[in-house]
């Protein structure tokens, strides 16, 4: 198998000091095709059974649009908040020493490990009108559970580890000398943050943002418990897919899935490009 790829790969092979490009490229491409590309292709083929007209009828449906806007809107907002807070948490964990630091450090990964349904039920119990937090929030006039705000809360929870864990290692490798040099040259704290730290952290922040966002768009398990699931109000796109499946409308379900996939891919592709430019120092 790999021999075939090695031959294929030959014309593009760059003269490098390390051997093994053919082998590793072969394995990577085969693996990516098997695990990612083929299932996605199957999805597109299933959706294509509808024809362009049928696909568009579903894609342009007002309820589908409302769900898409909700899914992408809440995922963007949650990823944005997670990036700011996650960056802050990473900073505190790396730069300061305080009691129980390693305990909090380990806590960050929990949302990764917890089954999402458990997270959804727990969050709903806390934020519902009769829950610990929900009770006070409702007195203050803010309803969280069973509204779009609840969706954002669930996505904040599951997205946080992505942003913390992508920024943390980069922060650990930053040299304090850069900040000291900036300070000794008369830069204000804000200037140091903006001109010295942020450009170095930006690629990692953006990666964390993309991961949290991608995870949030597709999240189903935790969200359905807290969202309320009202059409046009708090119904996420993945739920619409499940509803279509329950109607045995496999083509309709894959149509919505392909729409979500295309939108996610465009956004992630743009973010990736931006991220590459950032790390090459072409922006900022």
């Amino acid at each position: 198998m790999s021999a075939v790829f090695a031959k294929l790969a030959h014309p593009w092979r760059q003269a490098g000091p390390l051997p093994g490009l053919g082998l590793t490229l072969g394995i990577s491409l085969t693996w990516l095709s098997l695990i990612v590309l083929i299932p996605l292709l199957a999805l597109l083929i299933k959706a294509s059974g509808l024809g362009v007209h049928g696909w568009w009828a579903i894609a342009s449906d007002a309820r589908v649009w409302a769900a898409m806007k909700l899914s992408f809107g809440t995922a963007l907002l949650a990823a944005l908040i997670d990036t700011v807070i996650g960056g802050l948490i990473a900073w505190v964990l790396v730069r300061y020493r305080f009691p129980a630091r390693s305990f909090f450090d380990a806590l960050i990964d929990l949302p990764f490990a917890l089954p999402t349904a458990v997270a959804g039920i727990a969050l709903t119990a806390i934020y519902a009108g009769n829950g610990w937090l929900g009770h006070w929030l409702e007195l203050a006039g803010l309803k969280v559970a069973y509204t779009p705000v609840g969706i954002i809360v669930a996505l904040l929870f599951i997205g946080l580890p992505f942003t913390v864990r992508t920024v943390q290692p980069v922060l650990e490798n930053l040299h304090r000398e850069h900040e000291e040099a900036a300070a000794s040259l008369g830069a204000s704290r804000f200037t140091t943050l903006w001109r010295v730290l942020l450009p170095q952290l930006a690629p990692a922040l953006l990666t964390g943002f993309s991961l949290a966002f991608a995870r949030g768009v597709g999240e189903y398990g935790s969200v359905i418990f807290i969202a309320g699931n009202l059409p046009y109000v708090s119904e996420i796109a993945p739920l619409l897919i499940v509803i279509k499946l329950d109607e045995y409308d496999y083509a309709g379900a894959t149509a919505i899935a392909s729409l979500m996939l295309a939108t996610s891919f465009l956004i992630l592709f743009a973010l990736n490009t931006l991220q590459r430019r950032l790390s090459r120092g072409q922006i900022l």
Partner: protein
Amino acid sequence: MNHLAKILLIAALSASAGLSAAKNTELLNVSYDPTREFYREVNTEFASEWKAKTGQDVVLQASHGGSGKQARAVIDGLEADVVTLALAADIDAIADKGKLLPANWQTRLPNNSTPYRSTIVLLVRKGNPKNIRDWNDLVRPGVSVITPNPKTSGGARWNYLAAWTYAAQQSHGDLGKTKDFLARLFANVPVLDTGARGATTTFVDRGIGDVLIAWENEAQLAQSEPAGKDLQIVIPSISILAEPPVAVVDKNVDRHGTRKLAEAYLAFLYSAKGQQLAAKHHFRPSRPDLVSPEALKAFPNVVTVTIDKAFGGWKKAQSEHFADGGTFDQIYKPSR
């Protein structure tokens, strides 16, 4: 390459060996959500009865989940020997789309293949503070109603049709007025859960809503738990006879060699013991004569219509009301 082929061959062989290891003393019952407690007890009782009769040890397994999801799993290859689902439409789908049993499956066992039944009732809070007596109280402004989404929940479809029955009766069959009634009812629904259990949790544990539309068995079960002991059941003036049917999945039992066992299992549900267990778990027995009058006291008289008489059977009801663009999609205009 030679090596790889050998490994693949061994993997394939061991996989097929694993498949054929499934014995003809194993039975998988694919069921819906609120029957968990019921079938746990049925399985224990049936296993000991079968052992006494044949000397054979049987392994009975039950899988539970939303009825529609379970049907889809069977169509997609979950090897159910028997299915015991929330409504006939879901087993129809297994017959239509999976071709795993004949289309006339529902005529094979007594009472439309329904060993136990239920109906749709209203569950309200302690003392009935909103004074809810019947379906028309559910469309009053300021009353908050909990019911799951009929698109994803079998129980919710029975709820919807029960409310429809009342509205159609009140408006003497006027379609526009009936739809308007359901639109007003669903405008009072703040949360659409995906399954019946989820809706019960929202109502009982989260304290959301003034009234829960529910299976009678689910409502009685909720009352028997600590968090729900103060809840009250309100019997509406008219409701629907909910018939959760059962069937042997022919293609699967013939492949597994479990037809005899599967048929005996379903026959057990119709036996005196099976009927008594159903009543104990809040289902209405289809043969009340086999159950003690004491146990029947839990089931008050309810005026009900049947799906066949009032809606022309599940196939018709499914496509008219719950398919894409059906009446549920038409009435659903949530308050923004």
